[in-house]
């Protein structure tokens, strides 16, 4: 486990030294500023606009980082052959994967916290004080982080056997599917055969449902999120990530490097 930790820290270090990260964070903070500006145009809903746009920015930026760094996590090491020397050490392949995963999640966590601070700063600037209702924002941000964890796990899986371009396509496909999972449930049986509708409905329960983590409406209006949902979502993310990582480990453990 210490070895996985070493890989994780190195992955984190790599992300931090990658200048792309800073550009993205800067862009996110820019969006916060824009949110303040836009909020002032839509009268009476300043606060809501800042919260919505702010959360959107955190989610979008986080997603970009998760996907673009995620798909290269394993591929880059295989392609550049940095992995060769590493695997000759007494480290198991699954420890390596776990470390990569943890490193990127750590990067995202740090990133998200930074942007959340920016969001709260923007809010303070506009409202002059914070209320307890604003704590819902923290839940929303936590949910975003859970969502990002899932996306990273998927990106990691695809990174194990695909080139980055394909992996981006696969991950994006899963992301889009994840957003529309709920539509699958209400597909009218007119357009499809009943078996197809039942199959899609079943599939919709197994695909990663990223809408679970979307509480932006509640957060924007300061409505509380039930504690049960927090527990369930955490369990869901943890379970799903574990499953995806297990598959990734299985795929990678017998992979012949070039």
């Amino acid at each position, binding site marked *: 486990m*210490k*070895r996985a930790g*070493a890989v994780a820290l*190195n992955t984190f*270090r*790599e992300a931090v*030294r*990658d200048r792309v990260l800073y550009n993205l964070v800067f862009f996110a903070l820019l969006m916060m500023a824009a949110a303040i500006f836009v909020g002032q145009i839509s009268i009476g809903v300043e606060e809501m606009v800042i919260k919505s746009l702010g959360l959107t920015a955190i989610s979008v930026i986080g997603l970009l980082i998760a996907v673009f760094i995620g798909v290269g996590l394993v591929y880059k090491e295989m392609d*550049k*052959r*940095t992995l*060769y*020397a*590493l*695997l*000759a*050490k*007494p*480290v*198991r392949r699954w420890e390596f994967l776990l470390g990569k995963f943890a490193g990127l999640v750590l990067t995202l966590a740090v990133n998200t916290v930074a942007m959340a601070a920016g969001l709260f700063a923007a809010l303070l600037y506009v409202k002059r004080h914070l209320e307890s209702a604003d704590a819902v924002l923290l839940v929303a941000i936590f949910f975003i982080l859970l969502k990002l964890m899932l996306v990273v796990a998927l990106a990691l899986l695809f990174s194990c056997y695909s080139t980055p371009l394909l992996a981006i396509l696969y991950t994006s496909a899963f992301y889009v599917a994840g957003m529309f999972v709920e539509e699958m449930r209400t597909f009218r049986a007119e357009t499809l055969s009943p078996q197809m509708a039942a199959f899609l409905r079943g599939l919709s329960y197994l695909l990663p449902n990223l809408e679970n983590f979307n509480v932006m409406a509640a957060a924007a209006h300061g409505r509380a999120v039930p504690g049960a949902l927090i527990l369930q979502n955490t369990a869901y993310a943890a379970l799903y990530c574990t499953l995806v990582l297990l598959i990734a480990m299985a795929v990678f453990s*017998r992979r*012949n*490097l070039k």
Partner: protein
Amino acid sequence: MPAIEIENLTKDYPYGFLHLKKRRSLEGLTMQVEAGEVFGFLGPNGAGKSTTIKLLVGLIFPEAGTARILGKPISDIAMHRHIGYLPEQPYFYDYLTAAEVLDYFARFHDLSAADRRERVARMLKKVGLETAGKIQLRKYSKGMLQRVGLAQAILHEPPVVILDEPMSGLDPIGRREVRDIILELKGEGRTVLFSTHILSDAEMLCDRVGVIVSGKLRGVGAPEKIVGVAAQGMEILFELAQVEGSASAAILAKATKTGDRYRLQVAEEGLYAELEQLRGAGAKILAVAQVKPSLEEYFMNLIEAGRAQAAAIEVSEE
């Protein structure tokens, strides 16, 4: 116990559309490397040297066969504690400095933090990268990268060191440094297995060599012995200013002339008789040496034979 035992190792590479066709890159390799020896893996490009090494280190998996290092099977990760590996054309995280890379790799061995620091410093010195230790690897030359690679391979003082083309891309000074390090490792009692296609290096360093051509092991043994054939006699190099008499003319007829010098080949038994004759003729003896086929000739013959075989197989497959 031999340090490395390989038995019937076989590896296929899929290629072509949908990876349906297979190319057998290693066929039934069986050999051993004794503890404490320097073993050279020779062969042309694509012969299977790198494949064998990657199989040993666990980067790829064999179709058939087994191998053991220090008695432990290659599937055992714990065995990696006792090996050091330098990959072909090494590349490391270019955003790290040499010190950071070595420290990173060192964390995978059970060393205390203080030990790690000390080893990293010692290794940097050993491979001559003391001053460059704090510079990011993206600024390193190939030779410097190779040295970093060597450092991470021997950092944990493994009894078995496996190097894939350690001399490739280095200038003569770099090559000499690597050779020195290999001899140092041998002096420390470690087993060194390295692959190369530079024959003179193999001749100079190795206790034994193994020659692989087209995926098959063609021969194993000490460099001198592997060429198989015993010395083919002696050769006398001499100069003769004046030709006097029929005796000298007879000798000169047998010799080949290059510029002012003559070479004369003689069976070992008749050496002294010929020398007397030349002395009588007033020749100036420049050198007397054994005639033996070079490793290079032996090597080229093997390759030719291998190619012919491969061509024959291709023809029969069509």
